[in-house]
């Protein structure tokens, strides 16, 4: 569904020091430098996959999404989405994709979202029956009955985001590019949005490429992740494999029924957190069964959970490691 080969996107950026003299100098002399936002990445995504696109700020995630959705013309390399070259922005291509950007909107600011929905119906030439059916479904799922009739500018961020999603999905796109879709939303709204994206993917077999700084989004939605840094590919594979490769330990969190001396705890694993009634160990995967049995047998355990290290930590480790040439 998505095929990216040796994709490059470079920008020419004017840089000047601050100050009045520099401002005057820039009138006659304007030095520029090339910023390699995307620097030769290749990957492919099958139809129906949900893929997390991760990287630190400035890694090139959003630039890649913009190239794939046809907004940007690549410097070199190729991209194919649903059999189309994105930048040509052919009608057949634009009808199959959607790009949701958390901080930008397609909703008409001074009119109720229902007007944008109607506009999209006309522009995407959605048959009326399908339009009303999809709209009713999205209205119910996203609870839009009241908000769709209020001018957009008077809606809260969460309400606007739900309407954005509705407007973006009315034409039932086959490819969803989601750029920080949960940014600024409260926890329950983030969870609702994740559930909705997953349900949409499962129902329509849509392909989802998601960028997010909220690792919960990635954990909840994306079995596979593509990680880029400084425009270059750092990892492409299963999220679970990434976790196991970078952090082969599990976190064993134990709530104690009484306080224990620190010296008594080191033998169970590397102690990473310690409170009056709570401790967290880092335990190698292959020793997990044995250590957990010992913890239960030897400590006053009130409660215990076993989990992977937080994805944020894994990402931090990945970006701290030097990139292979």
């Amino acid at each position, binding site marked *: 569904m998505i095929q990216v080969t040796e994709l490059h996107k470079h920008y020419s950026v004017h840089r000047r020091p601050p100050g009045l003299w520099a401002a005057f100098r820039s009138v006659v002399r304007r030095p520029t430098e090339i910023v390699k936002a995307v620097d030769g990445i290749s990957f492919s995504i099958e139809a129906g996959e949900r893929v997390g696109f991760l990287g630190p700020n400035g890694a090139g995630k959003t630039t890649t999404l913009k190239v794939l959705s046809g907004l940007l013309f690549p410097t070199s390399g190729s991209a194919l989405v649903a059999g189309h070259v994105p930048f040509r922005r052919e009608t057949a291509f*634009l009808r199959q994709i959607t790009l949701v950007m958390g901080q930008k909107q397609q909703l008409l600011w*001074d009119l109720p979202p229902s007007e944008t929905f109607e506009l999209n119906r006309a522009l995407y030439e959605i048959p009326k029956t399908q339009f009303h059916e999809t709209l009713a479904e999205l209205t119910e799922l996203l609870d839009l009955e009241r908000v769709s009739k209020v001018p957009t500018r008077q809606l809260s961020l969460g309400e606007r985001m739900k309407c954005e999603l509705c407007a973006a999905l009315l034409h039932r796109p086959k490819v969803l590019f989601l750029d920080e879709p949960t940014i600024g939303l409260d926890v329950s709204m983030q969870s609702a949005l994740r559930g909705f994206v997953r349900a949409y993917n499962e129902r329509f077999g849509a392909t989802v490429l998601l960028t997010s700084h909220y690792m919960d989004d990635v954990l909840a939605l994306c079995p596979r992740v593509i990680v880029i840094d400084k425009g270059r590919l750092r990892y492409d594979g299963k999220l679970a494999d990434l976790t196991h490769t970078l952090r082969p330990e599990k976190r064993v969190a134990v709530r104690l029924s009484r306080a224990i001396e620190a010296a008594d705890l080191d033998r169970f694993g590397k102690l990473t957190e310690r409170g009056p009634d709570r401790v967290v160990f880092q335990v190698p995967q292959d020793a997990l069964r044995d250590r957990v049995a010992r913890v239960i047998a030897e400590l006053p355990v009130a409660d215990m959970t076993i989990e992977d290290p937080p994805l944020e930590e894994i990402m931090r480790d990945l970006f701290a490691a030097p990139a292979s040439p």
Partner: protein
Amino acid sequence: MNAIFRALRALPTLLKVGVAEAVAYRAEFVIWLLTTTMPLVMLALWSEVAREGGPVGGFTGADFTAYFLASFIVRQLTGCWVAWDMNREIREGTISMRLLRPIHPLAAYAADNAAVLPMRLVLSLPIALAALYFAGRDHVTHDPAMLGLFCVTVAGAWLLSFSIMSIIGSLAFYIDSTLAVADLWFGLFFILSGYFVPIRLFPGWLQAAADALPFRAMLGLPVEELIGMQTRASALRGMAIEWAWVLTCWTGAVVLFNRGARKYSAYGA
């Protein structure tokens, strides 16, 4: 061709939404209307000149009244400021949303601009027509063919105005800001279109230049048709020049936009 038919099919909804947006800005819209009343100022000025000093270049006070009232009407029908919207949207990256929709952004801009016409007409045209009827009805052409030519010329003037504004707006893909270009354009337009001074009062060489350039077709020509200052033959000749400019400028706008979009950086979006 398919793209044109698709745009036409979507046009009623685009216009409906555009009208709803125009209505949403009620106060701003009325204030904007006040900014388009320059022909009425010129009317007062030139009428007074003619009243005190006699006809100017053959124009009597009544001629000036009819000319500038007709100018006001034509300007209401053909005024277009899309260059400002495009300049802002390209710089701020908000044009991205237009680029993602399955309709050419220029068609969407055209619909947005056409959608404000009904509001302009409802608010200003009755007053202007009534004033023209009472103050200069003898000057309004009674030739049905000329009235037909006037309608086609006004449509061409709007398309020409939109195309040139689109060219200026599309330059924002290439240079940081196009507002200075727009100012330069309007400076020339105000003089060479007959907006400040009827072109017939110009020296011959300047009239010839105004005839050959797109300016006169955007205002002076339809105005002169409406108040009977053009013969059928001269109106047809002017219209041919006008539509040649429409074709040239529209093609130029589409080419410039499509090529410019390759340079789009989508910063901020």
